[in-house]
Structure formats: structure tokens, C-alpha cells
């Protein structure tokens, strides 16, 4: 019986595939793990996978390999990640990730990632925010690109590998991976009992809408940065896939936690990131002491510079975590009006200096050329000679689709458990930035590439177990189920093409984004958040009156954008309302009126469920303290309690060197045995 369920073919003889949506680091790793487990995959992506947003990651990937002999270890990595995240992350998944990290970096090296090396030919590591250790492996300053390419190459290889059945006989004409690039995910196909049996997607060239069966589905579709308009994110990061399944009943967790990166360069279309690795390699942040200083940065003498991060946080200096650095920059520029003076505009701009000019040029070229090239190309100034001018920009979503995990007795994860990375929609999984699991209230730099790959390494085996234990394959469900799901989406699309209101969807998006950017980022005030929510109500109404800008039946980006906008509005509400509700300050979520972290009331996961508007009203959110879901027929009860069994919450004090982990100062106390537990469910 079990062997039959795990068989390659369904009852009616079709090759059973699972579906992965998204071809960034998380999606591609999931695909590789599935292929190794003998599970054929259909991989869907809005863009050629080699152009996924992971390509933008610059600085590196964390792994406590301890090459520099500093006493670093996965335990310290775990502690610092949890501390950096202000204790909002469930700790077993973080432990699993920190323990696996060295192996992951070695694997990537085996795959051919051109990591920078030490003179002995070992992997080189550099410093990053929130730690005192050299823990970040890197390939110049385009590490994300290099990691993405390595995984892309492995998946491309699986496009040439034949499917074999359980006896090892080749199934003619079937390859392990079939890629569907330039396909937009629309929704999951739910059967009568609410179990995901496949997806509906649209070919964005021919505009054909089709339903695809899949024995399980995993989203690796990235974050929702475009909700804020201009950010460091790629234009494809609308969060549309996550928004869509949220509307279908998936729980969205901790949506209010949005990371603002302290150092980006302004632009008309996007805000381009200047990696934290610039500071990891010794870059210093400063403003002139005299707010009316008119000399170019390079000519301002040392003693007339205010190195405000180093002054306030002597322990971690320029490498305090991003939430803190962004707040300090905001304070300096926005409140104190001490941003760099601009002689042309005759005012203090919202900019500070990020200075590398004191560092040896040859080392900069070898380690940071990728970002310095971006600065040079987009600003037109030589960053080897002039301090760069930067300001914070929306960067990453700690929140995302809620996913489960199964805790092992050693405090880590039970690998292969079908609960790992499962959403509350049975058969639907999520990995990467689109889920919420690893970073709590604030992500440490260079942990995102790690969490994407680790997420895929956990999700892949979880999907395989789920698929192998199914009573009935999606391929044995009646075609009518899929036809109905496709028709529903086809009807919606046809309705979009008929929209002829006065609102331009791109301008409406700009309105939404400006509101979110102004009031829902570094500093949050309840009166403003009330207005943001009211504005979202208004925008949701106006979105019903947009006019489609293009009625073409081919490569219609205008109609596609209207759909994405709808999902962005829904996620904007999750972010803004979640922020309104959380009356405390924790990690990236900061309310001046509630300056302290409040563990008694808010050390809990925000669990949001969508409620469609009734009778022409706008949609609303149901916030749950607990809920039930089931996997393979087993009911599971979930609460919003955070699993803090490994590292006990304490106040963050980055003023003090080594505060993020006891081990970092050599002052290791005998850790109390992990508290009995505080289970996630």
C-alpha cells in the first residue's frame, strides 16, 4: 500500500508531479531536494528563474565555520539571530538553520559558487550586522546572483534527467523538471475538503489560463516590497502569490514586520541597495558635525565628522542590526535635520555618508566591486574617492505566510516531517521570503540567503513525505475540479479586461505606496496608522473603478498589473492593521508612543486571516489567537505562542560588545537547560 502511494505514476498512469512556484533560492533548492527524493517537479516562474529577485542579494551568506578561529559556532549563530530578531522567531527552525549553515556553504562551494578565498584557499568570511564574528561567506558583492546561478544550473541539469519509475525504468518523454517560465501564479486548486490539488496559472505571453494538477504545491514567491512602491526590491516582488492564497484562506503571520535597510541610494524607479558588507569591510557612517557644512564629504576633516553609530553603540558600531541603524539615520536626518547639506537644493537632504575612502582600494575591488559599480553607474560619483550618500529603504518582509514546523527532542526540526513549512491549507507549502519563519521581528544581514536555501532543504523533504502519504493523487481527481478552477480565474480575467473606469491602476498603486512608505515604515504612530487603514479602504474601493490600460490578447502587462494591485492592497492592509494593533516596539516595528518591548502582551505571533468584503464593503482581517488545521488527516492545534525554549528573551543592548550572545565575550555561563518548553502549538 505505502509503496503504491509513493509510486511514480497515478492510478490512471500519469507521472505524478509536485508544483513549485518561484525560481529564486528557496524554490530552486526545493526543486533540487525533490528531484533527489525521486519526485518529478513542475516549476513555475513569472520570469526566467535566472532573473529571480535573489539575484539582488549582495553581501553574503552566514555560516559559523569559524575559519578565523574566533570561537564562532552554530550555537552563537542561533543566539544572535534570535536576539537580533527581538525574540519573535520560533527557535527550533532557527536552530536547524544555524546548525545546517556550514554544510550549506560547503555545498554551494561544491556547486561552483566563486566564493572569495583566503590565502590558504579556504572560504573567506567577513563581518555583518548584529555579530562580532566573521561569519559571512561571499562572492564579491554579488553573492545572491552567484548562489542563484549555481542552483539554477543544478535545476537546469534536472531538466535533462529522465524520470524513472520506482523500479528504475525510464518513463519515456518525461524529465525530472519541467519549467514553466513567464507564467503567473493565480491561485491554488482546492477540492471540496479544502485541500490543495494543484494550481491555476496564466502564460503572460499568450495569456492562456490553465489549471495544473500537483500532488503538493510549494510557493517560493518572495516578498511584497512593491506594496511600498520604491524599495530595494525587484519590480516583480508584488507579493501577489502570497496575497492570492491568503485570500483563499492561508494564514499570514507577522505581516507588520517590514525591514528597512539603512543604506540605499535614491532613484526615480527604485532605491538601490548598498550592502551591509560595505560596513562589514570597515565602511563608516557619518554626517558633518556642522549641519551647514558645504565642503564635499572627502574634504571634511576627521574631527568635524559625527560618526553617530559608533558613538552611540560602541559595542557593535556601524554593524548594529538594520532596525537600529535605520532608526538612527532617520533620527539624524528627519528629526534632527542633520542630513548632508546640498549646496544645489540649499537644504539638508535625507542622506548620510557611508564612507569607504579610508580602505585599501585593491581590497575594495576584490570584495565590494559589485556594489561600488552600482553606485558609480547610478550616482555618477567614484565611491573609492568620495563618501557615498545613502538613506534607508524598504528591503525585506520578516512576515509572510504562516508555516508550521515539527520540533525534535534536541530542540531542532524533525527533518522530513510533513508539517515543516506547511501552510494551514493542506497540500500548500511555502519557503523563502514569502513565509515568516526565521527572522522574528528583524532579520540579520546575510541570514536571508541562508533561510531561503535552508527553507528549501526543509520544504523539499516535507513535500516528498506529504506526497508519498497521499490517499489519492491529484492526477486521479476528475478533470472537472481543474476545469472549474480554471474557469473561475478565466472569468475574473475577462472581468478585468472589461474594466473601463477612470482610475489608472499604476497611479493608484503610487497612491497606495506613498501612504505605506510615509506612515508604515521606520516610525509608526497610531493616529497615522488609522488614516493609513482608512486610505486602504478608499483605495480598495477605487480599485474597483480602474480602467484597464490594455485590452490586447497577447503579452498584456496592464491587465496583469490590475490583478497584482488587488493582491498588493490586501497585503498592505495586513501590514498596516497589524502595525496598528501591536502597541509595543519590537525589532523593525517601532512606535515612539510605546517605546518598550512588551513581552507580557505581545510576545506572540500575529495570525491574520482574510475576510472578503460583504455587500460592496471592503475586506477585513480576522486576527486569531489560535486555530486548527490538519495534515494528512491529522488535526493540529496552533496558538500564537512563540517557542522560546532555547534562548530566553532578554532586552537587546547593542551598546555593549558581545551582548547578542554570551559566548561572544568569552563569558559563557552554563546555559540553563532549555526551559521545559513552550511549544508552538
Amino acid at each position: 500500500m505505502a509503496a503504491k502511494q509513493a509510486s511514480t505514476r497515478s492510478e490512471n498512469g500519469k507521472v505524478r508531479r509536485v508544483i513549485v512556484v518561484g525560481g529564486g533560492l528557496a524554490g530552486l533548492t526545493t526543486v533540487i531536494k525533490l528531484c533527489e527524493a525521486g519526485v518529478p517537479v513542475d516549476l513555475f516562474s513569472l520570469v526566467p528563474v535566472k532573473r529571480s529577485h535573489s539575484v539582488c542579494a549582495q553581501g553574503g551568506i552566514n555560516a559559523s565555520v569559524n575559519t578565523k578561529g574566533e570561537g564562532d559556532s552554530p550555537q552563537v549563530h542561533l543566539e544572535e539571530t534570535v536576539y537580533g530578531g527581538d525574540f519573535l522567531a520560533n527557535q527550533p527552525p532557527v536552530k536547524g538553520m544555524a546548525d545546517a549553515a556550514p554544510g550549506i556553504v560547503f555545498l554551494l562551494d561544491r556547486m561552483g559558487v566563486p566564493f572569495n578565498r583566503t590565502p590558504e584557499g579556504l572560504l573567506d568570511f567577513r563581518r555583518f550586522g548584529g555579530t562580532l564574528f566573521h561569519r559571512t561567506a561571499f562572492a564579491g558583492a554579488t553573492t545572491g546572483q552567484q548562489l542563484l546561478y549555481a542552483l539554477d544550473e543544478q535545476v537546469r541539469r534536472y531538466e535533462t534527467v529522465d524520470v524513472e519509475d520506482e523500479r528504475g525504468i525510464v518513463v519515456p518523454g518525461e524529465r525530472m523538471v519541467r519549467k514553466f517560465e513567464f507564467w503567473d501564479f493565480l491561485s491554488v486548486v482546492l477540492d471540496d475538503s479544502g485541500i490543495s490539488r494543484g494550481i491555476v496559472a496564466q502564460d503572460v505571453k499568450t495569456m492562456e489560463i490553465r489549471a495544473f494538477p500537483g500532488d503538493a504545491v510549494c510557493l517560493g514567491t518572495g516578498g511584497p516590497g512593491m506594496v511600498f512602491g520604491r524599495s530595494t526590491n525587484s519590480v516583480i516582488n508584488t507579493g501577489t502569490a502570497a496575497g492570492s492564497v491568503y485570500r483563499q484562506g492561508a494564514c499570514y503571520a507577522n505581516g507588520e514586520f517590514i525591514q528597512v535597510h539603512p543604506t540605499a541610494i535614491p532613484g526615480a524607479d527604485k532605491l538601490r541597495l548598498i550592502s551591509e558588507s560595505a560596513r562589514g569591510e570597515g565602511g563608516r557612517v557619518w554626517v558633518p558635525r556642522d549641519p551647514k557644512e558645504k565642503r564635499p564629504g572627502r574634504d571634511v576633516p576627521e574631527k568635524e565628522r559625527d560618526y553617530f553609530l559608533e558613538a552611540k553603540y560602541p559595542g557593535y558600531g556601524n554593524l548594529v542590526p538594520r532596525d537600529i541603524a535605520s532608526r538612527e539615520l532617520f533620527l539624524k536626518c528627519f528629526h534632527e535635520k542633520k542630513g548632508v547639506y546640498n549646496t544645489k537644493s540649499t537644504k539638508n537632504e535625507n542622506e548620510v555618508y557611508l564612507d569607504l575612502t579610508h580602505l585599501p582600494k585593491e581590497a575594495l575591488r576584490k570584495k565590494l566591486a559589485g556594489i561600488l559599480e552600482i553606485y558609480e553607474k547610478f550616482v555618477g560619483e567614484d565611491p573609492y574617492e568620495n563618501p557615498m550618500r545613502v538613506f534607508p529603504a524598504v528591503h525585506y518582509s520578516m512576515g509572510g505566510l504562516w508555516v508550521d514546523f515539527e520540533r525534535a527532542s534536541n530542540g531542532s526540526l524533525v527533518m522530513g516531517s510533513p508539517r515543516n513549512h506547511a501552510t494551514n491549507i493542506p497540500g500548500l507549502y511555502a519557503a523563502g521570503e514569502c513565509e515568516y519563519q526565521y527572522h522574528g521581528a528583524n532579520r540579520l544581514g546575510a541570514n536571508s540567503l541562508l533561510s531561503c536555501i535552508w527553507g528549501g532543504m526543509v520544504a523539499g523533504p516535507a513535500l516528498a513525505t506529504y506526497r508519498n502519504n497521499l490517499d489519492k493523487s491529484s492526477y486521479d481527481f476528475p478533470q472537472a475540479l481543474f476545469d472549474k478552477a480554471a474557469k473561475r480565474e478565466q472569468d475574473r480575467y475577462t472581468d478585468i479586461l472589461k474594466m473601463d473606469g477612470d482610475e489608472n491602476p499604476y497611479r493608484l498603486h503610487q497612491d497606495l505606496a506613498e501612504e505605506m512608505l510615509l506612515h508604515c515604515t521606520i516610525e509608526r504612530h497610531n493616529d497615522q496608522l488609522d488614516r493609513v487603514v482608512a486610505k486602504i479602504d478608499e483605495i480598495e474601493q477605487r480599485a474597483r473603478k480602474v480602467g484597464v490600460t490594455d485590452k490586447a490578447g497577447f503579452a498584456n502587462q496592464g491587465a496583469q498589473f490590475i490583478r497584482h494591485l488587488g493582491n498588493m492592497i490586501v497585503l498592505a492592509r495586513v501590514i498596516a492593521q497589524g502595525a496598528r494593533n501591536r502597541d509595543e516596539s519590537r525589532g523593525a516595528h517601532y512606535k515612539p508612543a510605546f517605546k518598550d518591548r512588551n513581552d507580557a502582551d505581545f510576545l506572540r505571533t500575529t495570525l491574520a486571516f482574510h475576510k472578503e468584503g460583504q455587500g460592496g464593503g471592503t475586506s477585513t482581517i480576522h486576527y486569531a489567537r489560535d486555530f486548527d488545521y490538519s495534515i494528512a488527516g491529522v488535526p493540529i492545534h496552533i496558538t500564537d505562542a512563540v517557542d522560546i525554549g532555547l534562548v530566553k528573551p532578554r532586552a537587546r543592548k547593542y551598546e555593549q560588545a558581545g551582548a547578542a550572545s554570551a559566548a561572544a565575550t568569552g563569558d559563557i555561563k552554563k546555559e540553563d537547560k532549555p526551559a521545559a518548553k513552550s511549544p508552538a502549538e
Partner: protein
Amino acid sequence: MADKKTVRLKIQRQDSVDKPESRRWEEFNVIWLPQMNVISALMEIQKNPVTADGKKTTPVVWESVCLEEVCGACTMVINGRVRQACTALIDQIAPNGETITLAPMTKFPLVRDLQVDRARMFNDLKRVKAWISLDGSHELGAAPRQSQENQEDTYPLSRCMTCGCCLEACPQINDSSSFIGPSAISQVRLFNLHPSGKMHAAERLETLMADGGVGDCGKAQNCVEVCPKEIPLVDSIAQMSRQATKHMLFGWLLG
């Protein structure tokens, strides 16, 4: 308001590859913005899709992702030169308000307007086996050590974004040739430099020795001129040519 600075664009449009009769030029005026690039000009057209002579039209279709020249998506022909639209800053390419012309690449099948289909480039990566033949993603310890020098050789090659500039500029890429083009050849060099990648060097070289391989290069050297990542493509072609010759002459001896 009246004398607000504007940017003038002249854009080649076509509804789809099978509608050549729909090919046309349309001109647009958009308001100038600080730090503006070609992408943000196209975004302004989306918000108000009206031509310079007041005719309502559809927003222009183009491909873009990262907007910082690492993904390769937004490649197009700007003022006659192939490049990424994101790094095409308005103040640099039209400092005195000159008209900016945008056209799709010509060496790939057209999708619509400025978007083309570059699937052949990804297929070529399959043909040359541009990957490491990994035993599996389970833990097998550290990879072979590599010198800093080797990393400095491979990293620039590994920055190829599969953007298509080198193919667009290459005179040998045309309807009557099957030349694989510079980028895939350079990828062979990359993988043949890797300590375990070089164990399969011969297989990759054999693809380059077949029709459409490295021998079809006409040495125009346009590729290296247009590569946005300054990848030493001519050098890669020369080296692969030598390796292929060596393999052809002595390969059977070396096993």
C-alpha cells in the same frame, strides 16, 4: 508648470511577432525626474499612456526585474546601442533633451514592443552542460580548495547575466548561422576552470567543436565592447578555441 523639463522618447512598437504590419514608431513626452532612467520614463508612460501628439495608446511592453543591472532582463537597443535600460540614465544619454529611441533586440524572436524571447540562450546553457555534475546536495564536507587567483579568474566570468547584448552585437549571429555565441562559450571556460568542473571539460568542448561552435566566431570583437559586465569574452573564445584544438589533436591520447 508650462516649462517643466520633459524627456522625449521614440519607441518602436509591435503587437506580436505574427503581426509585422502593426510595427510602428510612437513618440512620448514625459516629465523629467531627478535620477531618471529609461525604466522610470517607461513607468511614467504607464501612468499616462498618451503619445506626444495626444493619441491614447497602450502602455509599452518591456521586460524588467532588478533595475540594478544584475538580472539582465531589461536589455534593449537604446539610441542604436544594445544595453540595459535600468543603467541608461536620462541625463547621460540625452543631456540636452535629445530624443531617445528605444527598440527591441533584433537577434531574438519578438514577443511584443520591447520584449523579446531569449529562450535560446538558456537552451544553449543546456547544450554546453554549464553546471557542476554534483553527486547530491547531502553533506559531503568541504569542496576542493581553490587559490585566490582562480577565484579572481572565475568570478568575472560567473557574472554573465544571460542578457543577450553579446549576441545582439555579434555579426555571426544571424538567420543563416547556428553560432552559439560568446556567452555560452565563456560559460564553458568558467566550468572548465572549476576543480571538479574540469573533470567534464571534454564533454563541454565537444559541443564547442561541433557546428555552430567556437570555430564560427568571426573575431569582430563586438561582444566584449557591449558586455555590461566587462566579461573578457574575446579572451574566453580564444582560450576555448585553443582548448578545443588541443582536445581534437590529443584528446584521444589524454583519454
